[in-house]
């Protein structure tokens, strides 16, 4: 078993996630894409942890999962509020923060 397989999987997932973040209009989809990115990172962390036979990567992955859960919670709440106010969650319509 090669670490390269895991790294390849992580890279693919990461790329899909980046594409999602950049290309999707739907805010929920963007959030899901972010989850993909985070999990791609997790795969990498665990792969390296196994390769080096250390526990730190596992611990770090657990942290990432915890932070991701919190992030999704906050993100979904914001999406919900935006939907209530605007009846839409299309991100390209949200440009009030323009400088």
């Amino acid at each position, binding site marked *: 078993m090669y670490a390269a397989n895991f790294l390849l999987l992580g890279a693919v997932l990461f790329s899909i996630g980046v594409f999602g973040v950049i290309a999707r209009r739907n805010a929920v989809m963007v959030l899901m894409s972010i989850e993909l990115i985070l999990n791609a990172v997790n795969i990498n962390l665990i792969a390296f942890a196994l390769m080096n036979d250390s526990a730190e990567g596992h611990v770090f992955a657990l942290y990432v999962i915890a932070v991701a859960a919190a992030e999704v919670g906050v993100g979904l709440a914001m999406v919900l509020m935006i939907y209530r106010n605007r009846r839409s969650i299309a991100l390209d319509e949200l440009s009030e923060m323009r*400088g």
Partner: protein
Amino acid sequence: MMLAASASTGWFLENAFLIPLIPAIGFAIIIGFGRRLPKGGSEVGIASMALSLAIAIGATVQWIQRVGSVDEGSGEHALGGVFGFARSVFPTATEGGHGGEAYVEPVIRSWTWWQSGSLEFGLGQHIDGLAVMLLLLVAFISLLVQIFSTEYVAGDRRYTHFFAALTLFSAGMLVMVLAENMIQLILGWEIMGLCSFMLIGHWWEEEANSRAALKAFFTVRVGDMGLLVGTAVIFFGANQWAVENGSNGFSIQAISGWAMSGEASTSVLFWGAVALFIACIGKSGQFPLHIWLPDAMAGPTPVSSLLHSSTMVVAGVFLVARLYPVFYTGFDIGGTNVNLIAVIGAITIVIAAALAFVQNDIKKVLAYSTVSQLGYMMLGLGVGAWLPAVFHIFTHAFFKCCLFLAAGSISHSGSHHSFDMKKDMGGLWRKMPITAGSWMISTAALCGVPFFSGFFSKDEIIDNAHNNGYTFFYYVGLVGAAMTAAYMTRATYLTFFGTARGAAAGEHHDEHDAHDTAAHHDDHDADHGAHGADHHDDHHGAHAGPHESPWRITAPLVILAALAIGSGYLNAPAVGTHYFTDWVEPRGAAVELDGYASDEGHSEALGLAALPRAEEGYSEGCGYTDPSPGTVCYAPKLNHAEFSWGKAAPSIILVAFGIGISAWLSLGVFGGRRNPFVGLTRRFAPARWIHTLLVRKYFLDDLYERVIVRSVAHPISKAAYWVNQNILDGVVNGVGKSGRSAGDWVYRNVDQRVVDGAVKASGVVASESGHALQPIQSGRVNQYGALLFGAATVGAILLILLNI
């Protein structure tokens, strides 16, 4: 080396440093909380002095025991006390001589105050007979004066400050008396200088008083330069010797040992002694710096009493007595029959006594009398009569303090705050019997009437001057004794006898301005504003006429009068007592140096047997021959004249003559009896000239103020003014102008162009770049994400490229 300690010691001796410490703490309490205390701080002052006195009495008793233990122990073997003190360096053995001749080691303790390089500046105590005597004396007199003051300055506006300064003053004197080293001695000396300034100028609202305070301060200061110079000279002379013996050149004991060691350079000793003696001239009111002392009468009477009896003015005499080995060898007192100390003392005796004849102010008579008596003390030290001189400090303190307090009592209750003998006194003895009685006793003591204390001290000085070969000074002393008797008789007559005049006759005269202001510096009127109306009325109500003073004034008077008789019997050769000699005089016996025995192996053989033994005639011994190796002397061996009535007869006759002549003249001049001397100054020109010379105080004040101060200070101040106006102001103006133009240039060029330009440019840059970057901030999340990941990609690629 094992030495059995035979010199006894005790708690009071070892903790004698508490004696000045208690009044110092008392001072802090009075100055901090005195105003809030029920009696304005005076109770703290009195309590602290009483406590000091108690310790001083304890120390005296233990010192006497110590002397006794040494005298008993010395019969068996040479022994000395070893004390495990911070720096117990010095001697540990005493000479095995016959009883009464062994050296009694002082109780020395020292703590490091601060350190500079290898030099330690210590604070400590050096308790020997001289220190114990003065500690007792100062604490005792201070206590009596403070009790007296509670009545005398009652209601004064600066009552609390008065007691604070009085307490600090005593503390300063006590610090000086038990000083272990020169630095501590200077400390106490300067505290006294400061406090005398504050106390003499206590009623500074009157210009004469503040001028007198300044005069006292500056005149003494002239002499104080000598103290600093002398200390430095002696330090550099003595330090090497002292360090070799485990001490340093500031230690008084080390200086004494060095001066007697025979290794000291004669010229260093001589110039050091001259410089130190200049300080004594200033502090002890010797000619030609005596001028401050009579003016110091501007202070309240209790202050004059304290200043002139046991503190301040005896400080100079004490310094000579304390460092006597330096003066003894520096001036070769044992080997000549004329030296600086004796000359200055003799001049002072005569000129001050002459001045006392023309004073109308009772306190000024006493002031000149003090100057004259200080001259006796200096004369005594100068002719090698150490013990009689120190004994004269002791007896003089009691009767002079009593005289001053009696003068205060008279002005307080008898003459309505006046001190003018001619205008406001006369015939007071009927009205004030206690004051008059104590005055008479003290006057008799001062004049040297036999069986009063002054006789036993002053006559001994005169007798010893003759015995030591100082014949000229013997005659000066005799003349001085006659003059003393004469001027005191005049003052006594004017005050207590004859017809009552002015306030003494019960006259009320509130126009005090009519008085000669110089005649009543001490007048309370300057202070009546502060007395408050009720006190003032009360005062007048009680002032129906002269009356006896209340007990707080008379009690100190009676005690002091008793001592004016009794203190003399401590050392009265006429009745065969010599306690004072035994207890106070440092014995001029060689002492074995600590640790010397191990030096070359010649210990016991050399140590004791070879020591010069003092025999009759004193052809050898400390001060005559240098101490043998391994021993040290701390005091010269001095001769004592044998007392006999035959030798005392000339002075007794002269005193009687002085009293008689003066009484006869006083009756004539002031009492209206006709005799050939009445109106002499009007009829006979030379007499008038002498009178004028005396009234103008030998023109010394004029010399100092008109000639010296004007010729030195005025050109200096003029030159300083010119320099100030032309050079300094020019420089200042020039600096100002160039500074201003430089400022303008900087404003125009640097400030406006460079700094402002930079500030504005940075603003413009920030604004423009902000506008340029504005489009990136689109508000679209996707675009932000793209930028983020794009940047991350670029960063990753760069990383990979650089790594590979």
